[in-house]
């Protein structure tokens, strides 16, 4: 089951479901059904465990800020720690299943993030805590319709419309995605609320290959409810199938 497998979340640590992580996929997917395309997209996320260093470049209304974090992901557990800038250093987040805690040195408290707080911006970026929490597996959460095929930046893409399946709780009811025909990276996404309102969009600006997988090097996410110009998620370093000590995913680790 894909659910039980640890998925790669690099941008994902910030925006699972928005981040499109690559898979060394060189074959031409001729004759694939929409469901099969989604399964190939999902396959891009699968790994046992990973450790990554991510740089967020937040293009806000008042200027540009950068935040650098390290993150560890295994199964449905994730831990991240901000390492720059100085003001944010030491801020940590722990996700265990569907629960999320945050520790900030200035507050010196471990705060459970729940309810409406989940919709708040994470570190002032275009990514919400809800995005961070979401463990969406496209093929399980959405029904897909192939709307067509086209080109993006000179590469062939599938254009899919995804609508959440009945009874599945997801942050975005509908998605329109463009999936690269070769890498099966969702190179562009538009995310909509149930009422049809466009909430967020993202596109992959740069990709790279690591351990035989294709990954986005740089991803731009735009929250259309905000006035900024989006947030770049830049993967600076990533390792797969790393050994992560069990203690990493404990609440005690937040205060260490």
């Amino acid at each position, binding site marked *: 089951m894909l659910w039980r497998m640890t998925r790669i979340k690099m941008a994902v640590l910030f925006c699972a479901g928005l981040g499109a992580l690559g898979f060394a996929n060189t074959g031409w997917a001729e004759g694939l059904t929409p469901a099969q395309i989604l399964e190939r997209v999902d396959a891009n996320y699968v790994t046992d465990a990973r450790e990554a260093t991510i740089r967020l470049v937040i293009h*806000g209304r008042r200027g540009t800020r950068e935040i650098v974090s390290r993150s560890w992901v295994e199964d449905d557990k994730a831990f991240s720690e901000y390492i720059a800038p100085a003001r944010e250093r030491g801020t940590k987040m722990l996700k265990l299943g569907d629960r999320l805690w*945050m520790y900030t040195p200035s507050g010196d408290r471990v705060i459970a993030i729940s309810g409406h707080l989940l919709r708040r911006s994470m570190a*002032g970026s275009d990514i919400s805590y809800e995005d961070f929490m979401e463990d969406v597996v496209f093929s399980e959460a959405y029904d897909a319709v192939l709307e067509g095929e086209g080109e993006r930046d000179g590469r062939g893409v599938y254009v899919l419309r995804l609508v959440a399946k009945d009874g599945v709780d997801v942050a975005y009811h509908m998605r329109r995605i463009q999936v690269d025909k070769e890498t099966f990276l969702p190179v562009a996404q538009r995310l909509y609320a149930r009422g049809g309102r466009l909430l967020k969009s993202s596109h992959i600006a740069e990709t790279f290959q690591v351990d035989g997988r294709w990954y986005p090097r740089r991803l731009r996410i735009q929250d259309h409810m*905000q006035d900024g110009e989006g947030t770049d998620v830049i993967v600076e370093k990533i390792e797969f199938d790393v050994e992560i000590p069990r203690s990493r995913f404990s609440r005690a680790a937040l205060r260490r």
Partner: protein
Amino acid sequence: MIKFLAKGLVRDRSRSTLPLIVIAIGALLTVILYSLAKGGIGQMVDTTARLDAGHVKVTTQEYARYAGLLPNDLALGNVKDLVASLEAEHPDMIWLPRIRFGGIGDVAGEDGETAAQAAVYGYGLVLREAEPGGEPEVWRLDGILAQGGLPAGDNEALLGRPLADALGISVGDRLTLISSTLHGAMATHTFTISGLVETGIAMLDDVLVIVDLEDARFALDMEDAASEIVGFRRSMRYRHGPLDAAAERFNARHAGDDPLSPQMTTLADQGQMAATLALGNALSAVFVGLFLVAMSAVLWNAGLMNGVRRYGEVGVRMALGETKGGIYRSMLAEAAVLGVLGSVLGTAAGLGISYWLQVHGIDISDAMQDSELMLSAVVRAEVTPVSFYIGFLPGVFASVLGTACAGIGILRRNTAQLFRENEL
């Protein structure tokens, strides 16, 4: 003749006592109601100015549009320079940068888990480095401090006593603020409670957190930024004219398309304040007008009764050759004397009671429990120079007007009829 009229007033109590009592009561009520209205409205304006609007307020254009949402991502930047330029241009005013924030107050239990939470409404004020006339005086913190002391060290906070009670914490305990930074990120910061305050404004005390401006800046990542800069005339008396002109000049200088450029708004132009001020003035006029009409009606009636009773006297005076006009004028003079006397008595009593209400006030806390108005739980009267003469208007005018109306009947009667009525 004067002696004759004076003796008549003193000896015939029915001609003087009732009108005197009516006039005195009218003047008394006019003075009290005017002073209460003036005090109540003034108190609301003063409280609003001190805690909310200032005499003028500088914000970004966009912040002013969404001020109710406390959008600190739209806060003013380069505040140090802005305050310096405002101080240079308006040396007769005090300029105080403030940060306002909403959020959640979170209290940890012994296990570090959340034990209690409540919505909070916070102010970051210049407290530790306050200058004379600064925030502690503007907020009258010494007067509203119910327990503990003002923030003296880093990361100390004052809490509304009802908020502290609701959270089950007191002086020395810690409160974690969960709010938003200038960049829209979630912020958490822990403060130690240095004191509890009671502003007397129920809606505020239930949520109030006051911290030093620098601590708020650190907590909310607002270096050299502020939600607003409030300006006060050093006399703390609001005068719309000159402040409005100052605001116009400021706004003309900073006009532009940048939604984060500063704009100045006067107290009267914020929210419903202009309407409230107009309402206050209208209420005073209504009080005076109502009493003028009501007392005139009563005194008219009393005059008519007197007129009937004084048919004999009037008839004799006419028989003795006094003209109708002369009699009428003497009655008006009597009324004026009674009006002045009654007004003096009523005003004196009204001023006494109003002064008592100014000192002690009326406790309306029961009625204010669920109120969303920025009104103190104790409403006080305000004795102003106008209070000293406001009662004279209805007192004297009503007396003369009532007598004038009643006296018209006398002018309409002819001498023969008077003689016949008096069987002369």
